[in-house]
């Protein structure tokens, strides 16, 4: 077995909170699904584009008030109690994930502004948010969390 040696001069901060990663996965699935419905659906029925600004609102609201995070609440109130999705608590910090969600919300808000005058830009930005959510869902790579780490390293936010 590899031994994790903290060493006498090392400072290792251990996250003592538990984050349910199933809630995060449900959230990412919700983002990917909503963007795809808006993206493909708008080719046939243009009003479906309204899903993009709605998703931006949901993500931004959920960032600042977790009780308003629609997809996570759907998981906690419906999927988890009925055993449809099993909980997966991991020792982690919620801040980087919230930051990533907020970043997604900001990108979708910007995309919403462009949807009418420059639909290609608006749709491309929405698609990028969906791609990043999918990468996080499938491979566990969270770009927003990496940006959070970089900002913490630069001393712009308190990351530890």
């Amino acid at each position: 077995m590899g031994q994790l040696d903290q060493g006498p001069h090392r400072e290792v901060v251990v996250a003592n909170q538990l984050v349910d990663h199933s809630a995060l996965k449900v959230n990412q699935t919700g983002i990917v699904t909503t963007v795809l419905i808006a993206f493909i659906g708008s080719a046939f029925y243009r009003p479906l584009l309204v899903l993009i600004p709605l998703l931006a609102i949901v993500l931004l609201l959920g960032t600042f008030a977790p009780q308003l995070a629609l997809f996570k609440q759907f998981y906690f109130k419906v999927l988890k109690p009925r055993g449809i999705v099993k909980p997966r608590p991991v020792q982690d910090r919620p801040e980087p994930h919230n930051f990533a969600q907020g970043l997604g919300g900001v990108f979708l808000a910007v995309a919403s502004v462009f949807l009418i005058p420059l639909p290609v830009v608006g749709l491309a930005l929405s698609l990028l948010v969906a791609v990043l959510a999918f990468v996080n869902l499938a491979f566990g790579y969270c770009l927003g969390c990496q940006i959070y780490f970089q900002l913490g390293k630069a001393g712009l936010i308190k990351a530890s």
Partner: protein
Amino acid sequence: MNAQLWAVAVAGIVVLAAACLEIFRARRARLQSAGATAESASEPYILYFTGDGCTVCRTHQEPALAKLGDVRIDKVDAIADRALADRFHVYTLPTTVVLSPDGHALHVNYGYATAPKLERQLAEARGTLQTATA
């Protein structure tokens, strides 16, 4: 439908550009950290840079490190120990560095490194040690 196709093309170009940038960034960081040193030890060891906001570290990297044989792994908080992290140009988490006993960086892995990859790098480091002592 035309707007959707153009949007796919634009998003594809952005993703491709980001992937190329990431490859370039990792190569540059690897070149810059070549020759960087940490403390010496009796055997090759691993520096494991992590942070308490790094999920992949806990879900992927730590289980991979636990699969390794009897090897010393120094777990370092990349933000708390910034000087050491900067020495190895740690720009992403997790980052693992395989060091020779004299503390020289032999391999720097930016991002998740699998157990077989780390084992191979450690075996190489031990091989270098045996060649040096022979």
